[in-house]
């Protein structure tokens, strides 16, 4: 079988020594982690390896010998290296030798206990140790979702990535240490660390504790009994600002918990939440600084009342049009006047209330605008709530129109059944035949005719107000979509993919290097980064809103029957 040797590219210029690493016998491959230089005492090497094995749980052993001779190959050295094979017994004993500055190394194996006399082919694969150690291999999404116990089927490459990642302790000793063993690996020129990162790690512990304390205070206040009385709790559940604030509070709790992240997924989640909060607050501060400059809040408050007035006037014009002959259709005059005057009076009441509040609008807006410092998402939610409050009369009209229309449709359908001599059996949930008396039939037919001829008027009012309500719902929906986008986008992962693309690996790619006859095949293994789409899909943060479960046909059916529609529901609300 073919023998694969994974050689770190940083050891290509190392002095002669022996190779330590892991031998994966199922794949017939050797992953070399470091080179131990002469002079060494074999007993100390074995002791060191067993210590490392205990800590990392990776079966590291001595795999072979490496000779880097600047001059001609020395016979005594090659015999010495073969004798080493008897001290550290390993099957097979790999011997790699490099002459001068040649790119082409010769590789051979010594097998004592094999009955296969044929020379097996050797493939030499170079890999960048630091990048493989830091990267995280993502399995394809369909495999990740099915959780069978297929440990033995796990990707062969993940075994190699695992070996290098778990052997961090081997890379901690550099050549300035005074130990008995001298190693060469990617960090042997000196272990690097960043002062800023260390300082932040030290500062984060007290910061987390302070944040946890503050959050427990805030959540204690929120859960207090005072806020649970009926009108207030109903208000909190309807306002989307409170949902968003609760969501962000949850995020803060995740960040400030002092449990260390268990695995890669949790670490990325924490980092994503942190960056998302930071960007949110930064954008919110930007918005706030823009709003409070040049008295824009004052201008906004000044234009709010005229806009509300304008909307009310437009509605009044619309109702006058409906009370006349809208689009050339002939309405039932009496019903038309009744409905039209009812809605006009409603608008008049609404305008009076708005004018009552107008002196306080600027002050309310000023204080509400301060909450934009909590984040851009909070500001957008407040905007959506303000739109909902300002168009509350449209919502009322829609409910009135829908209820009237719904009643009419139910009446019509039931009387139509009576017309044909049938009845709805509530017990059996089906239509049964029924024999009616003559006077029942007479009144039923009369009522049916009345309802039928009044249908166009009611239907037209219902249509107009449903369209207005749908318009408002679409605007609110767009704002919520934007809020969701900011909430769920994994910005840290995207930045990581942009700047350090080797940390998120979808797989590997091989490049064939120059070959020479008689020498082993040389390949370079590089990391294939994850595509942006997969990054977003894997690391998306969960949000609290669920998109409408109704399909288009059920939505149309509800509209036709006059049932009230609530297209944007939040998780946690009871679904009727």
């Amino acid at each position, binding site marked *: 079988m*073919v023998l694969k040797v994974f050689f770190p590219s940083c050891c290509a210029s190392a002095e002669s020594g022996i190779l330590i690493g892991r031998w994966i016998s199922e794949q017939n491959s050797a992953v070399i982690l470091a080179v131990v230089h002469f002079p060494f005492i074999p007993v100390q090497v074995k002791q060191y390896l067993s210590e490392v094995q205990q800590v990392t749980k990776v079966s590291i052993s001595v795999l072979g010998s490496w000779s880097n001779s600047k001059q001609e190959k020395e016979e005594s050295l090659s015999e010495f290296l073969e004798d080493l094979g008897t001290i550290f017994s390993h099957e097979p004993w790999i011997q790699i030798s490099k002459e001068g500055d040649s790119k082409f190394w010769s590789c051979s194996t010594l097998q004592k206990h094999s009955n296969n006399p044929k020379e097996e*082919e050797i493939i030499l694969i170079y890999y960048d140790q630091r990048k493989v150690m830091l990267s995280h291999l993502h399995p394809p999404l369909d495999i990740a979702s099915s959780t069978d116990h297929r440990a033995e089927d796990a*990707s062969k490459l993940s075994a190699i990535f695992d070996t290098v990642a778990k052997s961090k302790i081997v890379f901690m000793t550099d050549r300035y240490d005074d130990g008995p063993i001298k190693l060469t690996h990617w960090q042997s020129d000196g272990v690097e660390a960043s002062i800023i990162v260390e300082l932040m790690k030290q500062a984060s512990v007290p910061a987390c504790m302070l944040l946890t304390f503050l959050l427990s205070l805030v959540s204690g206040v929120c859960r207090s009994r005072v806020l649970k009385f009926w009108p207030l709790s109903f208000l909190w559940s309807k306002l989307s600002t409170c949902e968003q604030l609760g969501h962000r509070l949850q995020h803060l709790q995740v960040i400030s918990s002092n449990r260390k992240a268990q695995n890669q997924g949790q670490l990325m989640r924490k980092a994503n939440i942190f960056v998302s909060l930071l960007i949110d607050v930064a954008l919110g501060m930007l918005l706030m600084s823009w709003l409070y400059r040049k008295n824009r809040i004052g201008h906004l408050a000044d234009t709010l009342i005229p806009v509300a007035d304008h909307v009310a006037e437009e509605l009044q014009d619309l109702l006058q049009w409906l009370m006349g002959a809208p689009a050339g259709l002939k309405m039932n005059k009496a019903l038309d006047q009744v409905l039209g005057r009812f809605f006009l009076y409603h608008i008049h009441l609404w305008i009076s209330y708005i004018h009552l509040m107008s002196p306080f609008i600027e002050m309310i807006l000023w204080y509400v605008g301060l909450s934009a410092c909590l984040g851009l998402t909070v500001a957008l939610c407040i905007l959506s709530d303000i739109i909902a409050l300002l168009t509350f009369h449209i919502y009322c009209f829609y409910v009135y129109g829908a209820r009237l229309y719904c009643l009419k449709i139910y009446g019509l359908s039931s009387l139509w059944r009576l017309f044909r001599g049938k009845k709805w059996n509530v017990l059996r949930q089906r239509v049964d035949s029924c024999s009616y008396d003559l006077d029942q039939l007479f009144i039923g037919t009369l009522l049916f005719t009345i309802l039928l001829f009044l249908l166009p008027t009611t239907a037209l009012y219902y249509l107009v107000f449903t369209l207005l309500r749908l318009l408002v719902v679409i605007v609110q929906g767009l704002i919520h979509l934007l809020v969701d986008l900011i909430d769920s986008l994994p910005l840290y992962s995207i930045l990581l993919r942009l700047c350090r693309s080797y940390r998120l690996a979808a*797989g590997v*790619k*091989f490049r*064939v290097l120059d070959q020479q006859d008689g020498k082993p*095949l040389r390949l370079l293994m590089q990391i294939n980064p994850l595509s942006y789409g997969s990054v977003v899909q894997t690391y998306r943060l969960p949000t609290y809103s669920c998109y409408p479960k109704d399909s288009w046909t059920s939505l149309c059916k509800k509209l036709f029957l006059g049932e009230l529609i609530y297209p944007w529901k939040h998780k946690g609300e009871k679904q009727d």
Partner: protein
Amino acid sequence: ERWYRSASGAPIALRRRQHSASCRQLAVRCPRLRLRSLSAATSAAWLAAYGLFLLTQNSTVLSAAIIITLIGLIIYLHFVKIDEESLLVIGSLGIQMTSCYASGKESTTFIEMSQVQDVVINEAIHMQKVIYYLCILLQDPGNPQGVSEVVPLFQSSKPRLDCLIEVYKSCQEILEQRKMVPQSS
């Protein structure tokens, strides 16, 4: 290097390299972007923009046309036009497919040998034609005889059957080596 034809009649070149006994690289080169077609498309777009400008007397139409042409060209070169597709088969490691785009971008996919069940030539209905294509069958982890996925190769160059047979024979020679292995050890 040998010349063949693609499914639509364009000339393509197949280059085979053997790096070692168990490593082979097969590269199919598609016809490059011709200067003729590029200048024809650009002049058509700009003539249309100039015609619109004469109608509307709005100079932003011209600048919009320039920007759209440039962006469209960059998107075409970077995401659509494939110059070369190559297949690297390394026995005992896996199969790697690389597509080189006209802007220099290379997109690579590597499939490990344990996941590969076989490499076969299949038929497919593409638009109004029936064409042959080479594909890799991936093994179903639960069922050793089953196929979980079919990965088509050379999708943009679409070589004809004669070229596909050459590639198929090369791949099968290496794949057979891994079947011989359990008997020799």
